[in-house]
């Protein structure tokens, strides 16, 4: 090992074989290493042991309502752009047991032991890290926190990765979240053909990296990385004008625009966009009982503002039409969210566009709304 002092902010060059040792070290330290894997002609986030588990040499083609895996030009591990799956499921799981009660004299809680997993996320993109930081504001507030989220979040180790090959539905540059990672991470990778450039973002990241064989990257190599990042900005699939947000989507007059009727004709209200969205946070609590009705449980599940039952109160549904539900989602994400949490609810990952079965392009919808209200 070279005698180099490394600290937060230092970038080193790490061979891919050494990176595998780093993953092994994480697991020895009690982390569950999760990352991208190819499954069902798509990419999911699941347990990984070594780089060999990753989608090597795979690129993705994404457009509205369109996703394909392709053989890439290189043999790199992070040339793809993520699919429907997001890291959200690790911090805000789709199903969580909330409580179980048993009938006695009154009701008593049945204590259940749930160990909190410690995840090391491998390959978090700029837009995805921004999404985690948005959900932090929702689930960990001064006046309230979600215990499941907080415990998992506090134990998290994040290995971020800079995107070099944006997809057709990406617009992170518009949202200021990528392709270069902006948030706080433990380690951040830029992948070149034979090495990772690794930037250190935390003391934990530094101490882990300090046990590996690394090198200082040459100016030449750093230059290549910078060029590729600059090219990624140029190759961004979509662009969203954010200058008049959130106002465009919060002005009451704009909420009655004809565009909402137009998009409502195409929207199926299936809720795919909310399920793939890495920031959507709505949940429902469902109830179940055992056969003898002596024990009852509550379970938290993901919900969606596209579900008709979502806004049901006795006497009717506040948002009975698809027009009202689509409008709620879009105006929350790009409008009201800002006042609630100090940021827009979108990070430009593009999943909602890729995974919309009706090929609704929300970037185009915002542009169309703007055109209508400004004409």
């Amino acid at each position, binding site marked *: 090992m070279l005698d180099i002092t490394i600290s937060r902010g230092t970038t080193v060059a790490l061979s891919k074989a050494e990176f595998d040792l780093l993953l092994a070290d994480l697991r020895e330290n009690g982390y569950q290493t999760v990352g991208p894997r190819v499954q069902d002609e798509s990419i999911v986030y699941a347990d990984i042991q070594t780089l060999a588990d990753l989608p090597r040499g795979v690129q993705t083609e994404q457009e509205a309502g369109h996703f394909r895996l392709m053989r890439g030009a290189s043999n790199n591990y992070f040339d793809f752009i993520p699919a429907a799956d997001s890291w959200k499921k690790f911090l805000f799981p789709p199903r969580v047991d*909330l409580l179980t009660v048993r009938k006695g004299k009154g009701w008593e809680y049945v204590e259940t032991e749930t160990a909190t997993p410690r995840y090391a996320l491998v390959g978090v993109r700029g837009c995805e890290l921004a999404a985690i930081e948005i959900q932090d504001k929702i*689930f960990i507030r001064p006046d309230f926190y979600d215990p499941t989220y907080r415990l998992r979040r506090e134990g998290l180790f994040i290995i971020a990765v800079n995107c070099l090959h944006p997809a057709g539905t990406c617009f992170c540059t518009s949202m200021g979240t990528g392709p270069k990672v902006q948030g706080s991470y433990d380690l951040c990778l830029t992948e070149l053909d034979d090495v990772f450039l690794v930037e250190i973002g935390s003391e934990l990241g530094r101490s882990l990296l300090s046990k590996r064989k690394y090198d200082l990257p040459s100016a030449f190599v750093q230059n290549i990385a910078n060029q590729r990042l600059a090219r990624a900005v140029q190759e961004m699939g979509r662009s969203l004008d954010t200058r008049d947000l959130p106002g465009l989507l919060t002005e009451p007059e704009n909420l009655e625009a004809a565009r909402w009727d137009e998009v409502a004709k195409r929207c199926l209200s299936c809720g795919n966009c909310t399920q793939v969205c890495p920031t959507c946070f709505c949940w429902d609590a469902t109830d179940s009982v055992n056969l003898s*009705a002596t024990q009852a449980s509550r379970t938290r599940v993901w*919900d969606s503002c596209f579900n008709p039952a979502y806004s049901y*109160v*006795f006497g009717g549904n506040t948002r009975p039409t698809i027009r009202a539900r689509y409008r709620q989602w879009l105006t929350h994400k790009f409008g009201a969210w800002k006042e609630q949490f100090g940021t827009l609810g979108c990070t430009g990952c593009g999943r909602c566009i890729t995974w919309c079965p009706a090929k609704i392009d929300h970037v185009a919808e915002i542009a169309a709304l703007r055109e209508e209200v400004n004409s």
Partner: protein
Amino acid sequence: MTSLLPQSAPPTAGHPGKLIQPDWAEIVRITPETEGISTFWLRFIDPQVRERYHFQPGQFNMLYLPGYGESAISMSSDPEDEERLVAHTIRFVGTVTKNIGRLKVGDVIGVRGPFGTSWPMKQIEGRDLVLACGGIGLPPLRPAIYHIIRNREKYGKVTLLYGARTPKDLMYPDEHEEWQRHDIHMEISVDRGDENWDGRVGVVPMWFYNFRIDPRNTAVLTCGPEIMIRFVIYEGLARRIPAERIFVSLERNMKCGQGSCGHCQIGPYFICKDGPVFPFSVLQRYVNVEEY
């Protein structure tokens, strides 16, 4: 989100460190009110919870019936009740409330709360008050009525406009006399009278023209069906009461009570924590947006 109204302290019933885990309360009394509506008087089983639990008029609890779920219900009793009982007047209409309707004295249900903003009793001291409510909108105002009675000298002229469907649907009839004795002027009306009814027939907003209003010094508190609320607001504004002094209690689907589940949003507000009581001035942008 900065607070618009008196904010509750953190909920004192419900386990901190658990997302939605209630404390248990025993039903000690059930008062049938009208057809399909009863008042359930609850006492927390844990004496510590009983001791620390306080609510403000207009706030609500999440009531939990195992196997059925939770329902957001406003408190309808005196916040300073000597026995430290907490009452909820419940209409049996949904899965949870219908089954609460089958419970008996001695049964136990779960309670989390109190949640949300309250009627701004401090802020409106010195004002004339118009309390306008219809149907199940009276119970959330009853704690405010008790507060006014206890502090009668702090408020000016107090008028209660209260409407129900039929004379049989009028709630808390035994207390009306007591309220009037404390100089609360009541204008009661029904949608449909019966053979014995010689009172008013009509809808609540109509009675704004039955008494004098000093717009410079009047505050309106309103709760009830959305259509009634809407016209109460119009009448209030038409009588030149400023929107900042018209206070509205809203109802939406709620699962958590803490601005987490997302269900109760209207614009930037979570009704469960930024409401349920709002000054109309902040809602003005949204109330007339269709299906918002």
